[in-house]
């Protein structure tokens, strides 16, 4: 979905930034959003400064939306990992480049690939 939405905006995606948030993803404001996720999910530092940065970049509603999207994927990750939702083989093949760039081979193996 990230690739498709970037293509729809005609923006160039640098996938490596998902694994290394110090890199530029190509998503406007992306570095700030990645830092927000790292602090809130990954406990990578104090929350208040990054919350202010997100609010400065995206406004108060953007901050709540960033927290809400983060929250949604905390939910979806647990549903996927609890149910063992199969990943279609076609998705694995079409996403091979992403798997390689992000080092996901070990995670793919959990789903039988």
């Amino acid at each position, binding site marked *: *979905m*990230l690739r*498709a*939405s*970037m*293509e*729809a*905006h005609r*923006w160039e*995606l640098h996938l490596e930034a*998902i694994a290394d*948030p110090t890199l530029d993803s190509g*998503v*406007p*404001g*992306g570095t700030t*959003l*990645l830092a*927000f*996720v*790292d602090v*809130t*999910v990954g406990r990578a530092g104090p*929350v*208040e400064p990054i*919350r202010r940065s997100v609010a400065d970049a*995206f*406004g*108060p*509603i*953007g*901050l*709540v*939306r*960033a*927290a*809400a*999207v*983060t*929250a*949604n*994927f*905390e*939910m*979806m*990750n*647990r*549903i*996927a*990992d*609890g*149910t*063992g*939702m*199969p990943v*279609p083989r076609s998705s694995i093949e079409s996403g091979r480049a992403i798997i390689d760039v992000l080092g996901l081979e070990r*995670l*793919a193996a*959990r789903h*039988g690939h």
Partner: protein
Amino acid sequence: MPFDHHELAALPDIVAALRREWERLAAPGTWWSGAERVAIAAEARLARGVEAATPTDLPLGAREAARVLSSAPHSTGPGWVRSLLDAGLDHERYVELIGVVARLAAVDRLTTALGAGHEPLPEPRPGEPSRIPAEGTRLGRAWVPMPQGRSIVVALDHVPAETEAMKDLHGSLYLTIEEMADPLIAKGLGRPQMELIASRVSLLNQCFY
């Protein structure tokens, strides 16, 4: 109270969804009572160091499932799910438990990310679970019965009320299933920003899906 946090007030649709979730959590579900659902939530928070330990009548398998799904979901696997079933948990109760713990994780992440802390768990409501079995689900490649399909939207269909609850929160926090088809949609953030967040959360959680 976290649901009344000033930053959330700007998005009343999200506040309403959080309150609906708390109502659902407290009410009897399909296979667990309201007291059991709240006890599952307490166990899930205990695993994250949020709630203090309280006496519980939950079966050991349910306590184990709530703890792991809450604090270390990446460590699950088919053998782990089989061990829960061997311990007496059935697929129906396990799937409902996944839904309860997963949505609690979302609610807690939202409020803590905004600096609002944790909403106190609701008082359980009396009543019996509906015990309405699902139709059209079967055990295949997944670890729980589900319909044939390739979308995670069906993952909890073995307990349809849990699918509906997931869709309710998903639509408020992120996008409705219909909105997901639009790569140009913007809701406070543009779609690329939303998807970048989603990708990084999933990577940190070591979730391949």
